[in-house]
């Protein structure tokens, strides 16, 4: 999993970027894909989170039914970070739904 840098928007007062997941295996993986950001720092919120699982926010990678080997998919991320702390997250990707 990789991510872009984050640019700060004075309009939305958020740090914006993208996260990309890649299927590094040899077989296709069915979606949908959820990215969970474990234990985000205090005062850092994932603004476009779809929900929370076990206390950690997650987002869904949109419009990806499956990932073929070496195929990638990207999702926008938007963080509220009023303390301007360095955002360093631990992401985990899940396939399927949390319901």
């Amino acid at each position, binding site marked *: 999993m990789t*991510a872009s840098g984050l640019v700060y928007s004075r309009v939305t007062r958020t740090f914006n970027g993208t996260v990309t997941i890649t299927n590094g295996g040899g077989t296709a993986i069915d979606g949908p894909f959820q990215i969970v950001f474990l234990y985000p720092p205090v005062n850092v919120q994932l603004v476009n989170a779809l929900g929370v699982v076990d206390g950690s926010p997650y987002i869904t990678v949109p419009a990806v039914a499956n990932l073929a080997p070496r195929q990638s998919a990207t999702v926008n991320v938007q963080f509220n970070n009023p303390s301007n702390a360095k955002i360093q997250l631990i992401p985990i990707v899940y396939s399927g739904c949390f319901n």
Partner: protein
Amino acid sequence: MLAGFAGLAHADLYDVTVDTSAITGTVGSLDFNFNPGPLLSQDASAQILNFTTDGTLAGSPVLTGDVSGALPSTLTFDNGTGFNDYFDGFTFGSTLSFQLSPYGPAVSSPDGFSTSGSAFGFSMFSDPGGTVPVLTTDTTDGFAFTTSINLDGTTTVTGIRRKPVWFRSRAPFQNRAAHPVGGCARVCGFAGIATASKTGVIS
């Protein structure tokens, strides 16, 4: 995003020129920021060079994070903190221009294990407080353009919303995988406001 291009290799120097004649006399502001990503980012820097304008810089700039310098002199940004920002009041004239130079280990010698890039954003506002973006169709986030340093050391420019924009690379750069062109690339957006170009030498 109306135009953009990916895969520009290291040692790029971008010329940026903005035709601000439509808002001459507006008392507004400028914002530059350069930040790491949310995973592991390699050290990177960026400089704003040769800022020129017939507008007027106003008041005292606000520097946050790893930023040094003051316009119209060189600004230097490092990605060492989460928010590295230069914000300054500005009364617009008919034009402004500057050069953007991304550099540092993430550009010249990517380590192969970092998982986040870094990104630069430039915005113009029609108010001193920096809340009303101008000369962009990005009314959501307000960026005139952004530039990303990718994990392979290449750079990607996105978000050119108005007018033909050319980004010119003054320095020779190496050809790399996924480089889109050999020699000269030009990106055009809508007619009107900002102009930039990019040319390059493949070695």
